Each structure stands twice: as structure tokens, then as C-alpha cells.
């Protein structure tokens, strides 16, 4: 079956519109028409088709760009369906599935990214830590210690006593620990990945009994034992890589939004680390036969303190929840308390 209709032809040499009579062979998928000096045969599969409102444009040729503009509705439908059937280009075939499917795919992929982000990335982060030698933790901690301890005044006498205090405890540690007391009003303490634990005199002043100090050390040592600093770094890095490789290609806006979600997510991840340190710290307290009330007392004391929110609690503003959690553990777990006079006397020196 062949249909004869008119169309506008541009010969690729000038922009003069010429009317031509067109024959379309549906079976073979060939358009044929006569120009001034030659018979043209265009294969539908080798033309580029652009759909306009009431017409279609067909482009043909690599060196000479020839063009046909067709406005007959029936012929448009015939050519479009023929073109659709002849398409071998993967991109074009995917485009032909239409907008609703593309929107669905976009939403599905977005969901997949969120899921892999919540479950796969933390897992990869955790696993990749095992591949990093502990040596690197030490280097990281040393570098931080050197940079940040330069302008602080270390209390040598109290530091010595604190180290002795720690010697008396079973801390489940795998690496050598070192304790430093720094003179500062800041109510804070932190652990570095190299086993360096820094305690400010501000937080020591708040304490009423040695079990609170054991609770604090237990918490901080658990951060070191669990390699939380390195886990955090690996997780942030893998999250960043996922976001920048997958979303980077779509557009800048989505990548930026993803980036912000990444930093929010790492906040809640740090909360999970705090909870783990609370749990492990509690075990250390119990293992040393120290009163676990010290843990919740420490939290309550810090919460009640009129100071600005202590830094050691600020990254996790859910202190109440943590106290509730510890209180529950005190009720459910069995423990033994044995007063330790050596710890008691050392605590007096430290405080």
C-alpha cells in the first residue's frame, strides 16, 4: 500500500521550501519522492524524527542535512508508528515507554537510594573499618592530639592520678590507653582513636562520687574499643560517595539535597554510637563491681548543671531518654557492688 501526499522539502543547500509529492511504502518503511533532478529514497529507520504540534520533521543525511516537513495527520501517524517499530536505539526505545513509566522509575530509584542509604551504606562503612589497620587510628588520634593540645594546660598531678585510677579498672581495652586531665571550665571529656582520653577539670568538679568517674571512663573507653571515630569516617565517606556518584549526574540541586541529608543522617548515626558506648560503658561499670547508679547520676548531674549544655552531651540532646534507658538497665541487669577504697582515695586526688 502506498499513499501519495505533499510535503515540504529542504535540499540541504538552501532554505528554499519546495513542495514534493511523497510516497510512503509502509511494508518496506521507505519514503520516496522526486526532486528536480533525482529520485529520493529515505529509509524510515535512518531518519531522525522530531514531532511538532501539527507536523513532523524528518532529518536525513550526514554530510548534507536534508529535511522533510509533513503535516498530513494520517501520514504522520503511519510514519511515527513505523519509526517506532524500526527503532533499534536503546535510548529511543526507553524514551518511547512514555512519561508515566519514567516517573515511576524515578520514584522507585529514589526509594532504592534511600533504602540502600539507610541499610547498605552503614554496613559498608562498618565492614570497611575492618580493612583499615589500627595503626591508622593511632595516626589520626596523634595528629588531633598534637594540634589541639598545644594551647591547653595539662594538669600533670591529676593526670597521673587518673591513670592510676584507670589502672585499677578492667576496661576491656585492646590497645594501650592514656588519660590526660586538662584544666578548663568546660564540662567535657572526649576519646581519641589512638586511645588518648581527655577529661576536663570542669566535668570532674561536677562529680560527687568515684562511680561517676568510672561511668565516664567506661563510656569514653567504649568509643575507643569500638573504633567509633573510624567507623564514623568510613560511613560518612561511603555515604558521600554514593550520593555524589549516583545523584551527581542528574543535577546539582539533587546532589546538594542529598549532601545535606547525608550530614543529618550522620548525626543520628553518632547517636547510635553514643547509645552503644552507654551500653558498653555500663558493662564495664558492672564488671568492676562499681555502683551503676553512677552512670545515671552522672547524666542527671550534667543535665541539671546550670551551665550551657555540656559538649559531651550536646551531640545527642536526648539525655532524658538515655537516663531512662540506663535506669531500666539498672533494674533488669544483675550486679554486685564492692566498695573499692583505692579508687575512692584516688578520686579525692583527682577531684
Amino acid at each position, binding site marked *: 500500500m502506498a499513499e501519495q501526499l505533499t510535503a515540504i522539502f*529542504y*535540499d*540541504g*543547500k*538552501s*532554505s*528554499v*521550501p519546495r513542495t514534493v509529492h511523497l510516497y510512503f511504502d509502509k511494508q518496506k518503511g521507505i519514503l520516496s519522492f522526486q526532486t528536480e533532478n533525482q529520485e529520493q529514497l529515505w529509509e524510515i529507520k535512518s531518519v*531522525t524524527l*522530531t514531532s*511538532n*504540534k501539527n507536523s513532523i*520533521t524528518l*532529518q536525513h543525511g*550526514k*554530510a*548534507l*542535512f*536534508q*529535511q522533510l*516537513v509533513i503535516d498530513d495527520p494520517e501520514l504522520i501517524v503511519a510514519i511515527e508508528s513505523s519509526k517506532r517499530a524500526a527503532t533499534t536505539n*536503546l*535510548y529511543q526505545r*526507553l*524514551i518511547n515507554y*512514555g*512519561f508515566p513509566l*519514567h*516517573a515511576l*522509575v*524515578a520514584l522507585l*530509584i*529514589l526509594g532504592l537510594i534511600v533504602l540502600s542509604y539507610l541499610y547498605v551504606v552503614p554496613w559498608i562503612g562498618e565492614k570497611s573499618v575492618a580493612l583499615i589497620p589500627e595503626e591508622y587510628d593511632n595516626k589520626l588520634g596523634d595528629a588531633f592530639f598534637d594540634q589541639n593540645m598545644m594551647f591547653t594546660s595539662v594538669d600533670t598531678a591529676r593526670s597521673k592520678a587518673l591513670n592510676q585510677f584507670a589502672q585499677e579498672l578492667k576496661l576491656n581495652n585492646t590497645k594501650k590507653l592514656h588519660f590526660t586531665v586538662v584544666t578548663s571550665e568546660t564540662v567535657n571529656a572526649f576519646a581519641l582513636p589512638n586511645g588518648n582520653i581527655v577529661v576536663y577539670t570542669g566535668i570532674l568538679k561536677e562529680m560527687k562520687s568515684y562511680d561517676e568517674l568510672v561511668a565516664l571512663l567506661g563510656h569514653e573507653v567504649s568509643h575507643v574499643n569500638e573504633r567509633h571515630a573510624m567507623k564514623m569516617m568510613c560511613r560518612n565517606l561511603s555515604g558521600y560517595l554514593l550520593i555524589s556518584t*549516583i545523584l551527581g*549526574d*542528574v*543535577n546539582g*540541586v*539533587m546532589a546538594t*539535597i542529598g549532601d545535606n541529608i547525608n550530614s543529618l543522617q550522620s548525626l543520628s548515626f553518632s547517636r547510635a554510637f553514643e547509645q552503644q558506648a552507654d551500653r558498653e560503658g555500663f558493662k564495664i561499670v558492672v564488671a568492676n563491681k562499681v555502683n551503676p547508679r553512677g552512670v545515671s547520676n552522672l547524666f542527671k548531674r550534667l543535665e541539671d548543671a546550670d551551665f550551657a549544655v555540656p559538649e559531651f552531651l550536646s551531640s545527642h540532646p536526648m539525655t532524658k531518654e538515655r537516663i531512662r534507658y540506663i535506669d531500666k538497665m539498672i533494674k533488669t541487669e544483675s550486679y554486685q557492688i564492692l566498695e573499692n577504697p583505692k579508687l575512692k582515695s584516688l578520686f579525692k586526688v583527682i577531684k
Partner: protein
Amino acid sequence: MEVISPKVRNYQLRFHGTGSAFFSVIIVNWLLTVITLGLYYPWAKANKLKYLYGETSLNDDRFAFHGTGKEMFKGFIKVLILFALIYGLLFLFIYLQMPIIGILVFYCAFLAILPLAIHGAYRYRMSRTSWRGIRFGYRGQRNELFASFFKWLLLTIITFGIYGSWMHVNLRRYVLGNVRFGDIEFEYRGDGGDYFLLNLKGYFLTIITFGIYIFWWQKELFDFYVNNLWLEKDGESIQLNSTVTGGGFFQLAIVNLLIIVFTLGLGYAWAATRTLEYLFDNIILEGNIDLDSINQTEDNFNDATGEDVSDMLDLDFVM
């Protein structure tokens, strides 16, 4: 005797793209790019340009982009080798304990690439663009642009950046002045002084009005780019006129922002097509060139290296 006045003709530029169709292009491109670990990028770019050009019309006939992913992929490989060489040179000098010379060579090499990239990108992009089968073309001379570029750059450095405005406009004048559309020649008539004053005024008024003036500044810049563009052929001409308004830009920006924020970025396609629609609706062509009588004069050019360098260095295309 009858006086024949040149007939004034009607022209219409329009963008017909829709957000949903452009969204499909972006999603399919993205899917293929992720699956191929990024190798599909040049093809994705070709698909995107084909869509955007194909949805732009002049007097109801569509523009066409003929570039292919293969061409741009080849260019991409060449650029990779080029960049590897430059970095190799840097590390060689560091190895030879001459880091200062290394860094100097490194920056000079990147600076030298800039005019070459502009030249290459224009040659490729123009030769790959057509309307009614008539190719665009770029006839600038590489060495001439290279020499001018460094002359202007030197003047900019000597004047502590003030000449930068003139440099920007000179560059635009040179590049656009060498664009052909068949036997129609382009000409850009902007002046560096006007551009300098426009930006000076824009900068201070934006600060005084707490940023609100920025949309009117944008309007003036768009006017400056569009209103100074002329097309000429055999003594006939077409002048471009912009009818954008500061209020229009303001509305465009606010609505686009809302679309993007509330769709978590998925609405980017709609924001982009709205913008193009607004811009093309606000470029008016006036003159007397007969668009039915343009002749093909420009050659094919399919080396996309310049295009790829521009893409990697994030140089914005003028046209």
C-alpha cells in the same frame, strides 16, 4: 518611478519543550549513565542537546543538533590524554624538585587551553547545529583568538581586573562576529564600557536593595546580550530585541525555586523548560532578511575536543 522599500518580515522564535518530555530525557539518560558507570555521558549529552534544539523553532521550523555521542566520546578521550599530560608535567617538575616551575607550567597550560577550548567548542557546536538543513558555522581564527585572549588577559591583570568587562565583551564580539548561519553573518555590537557600568550599577543597587535588584540586573544583562546581536546578509539585516522584565525574572526564579524544593529536585526538568520558554518568548526578531533564501555555506566539522574541554572546565556556552 516606484521606490521599493525593503519589506519588513515576521519572525518568531519559540521553545516548545515540556517538563514531562524533558524529564523523560533526563531520567533515561541518567539510568543509562549509571548502568554504564558514567561512560554513557557523551551520548547523554547528545540526547539532551538533540531534545532541546529540536524543541526550539524559528518560524515554525525546528532547529536540529547533529552531534553524536561517538564524536563527543572521542573528544572526551583526547581531553583525558591532554589533562593527563598536563598533570604528568606537574609531577615531573615536582619530582625534579622544581615545584614552583611545575605549578607555573600547570596554570599556564590551563590558561592556554581556555581560548583553544572556546574556539574548538564553537566550531563543533555551530557546525552541528542546523535549521532547514542549513548549517551554522564558526569562522574565527584559532591563532588570532589565542593572541587576542592573552593580550586582553594581560590588560585585565595590569588594570587590576577593570579591563575584565572589556575583555568579556571583546571575546563575545569576536566569537559571535565569526558565527555564520549559511550566508547570514552574525554581529555583536556591545561595548565594554556599557557592560562595566551596567555591572557597577547592578552590584551597588543589589546591595542597597538587599538583593532584590538582582532580577533587574539580570534583565539588563540579558538585554545587553540580546539587543546588541544583529544578523546580516546582502545589506539586509535582522535585529534581536529582548522584552524580558525584572518582574518576569523574579517570578520565574521564585516559582522555579518552589518547584525544585517541593519535588526534592525531581522538578528540575520543569524549571528548566519554563526558563527556556520564558527566554525564547521574550526575544523578538525584527528586520528584512528573507529566511527562504539562505544558502548553505558552512563546512562540516566533527571534532568535539573543544566541546569536551569546555564541558570539563564548566565554561558556559554563549549561545
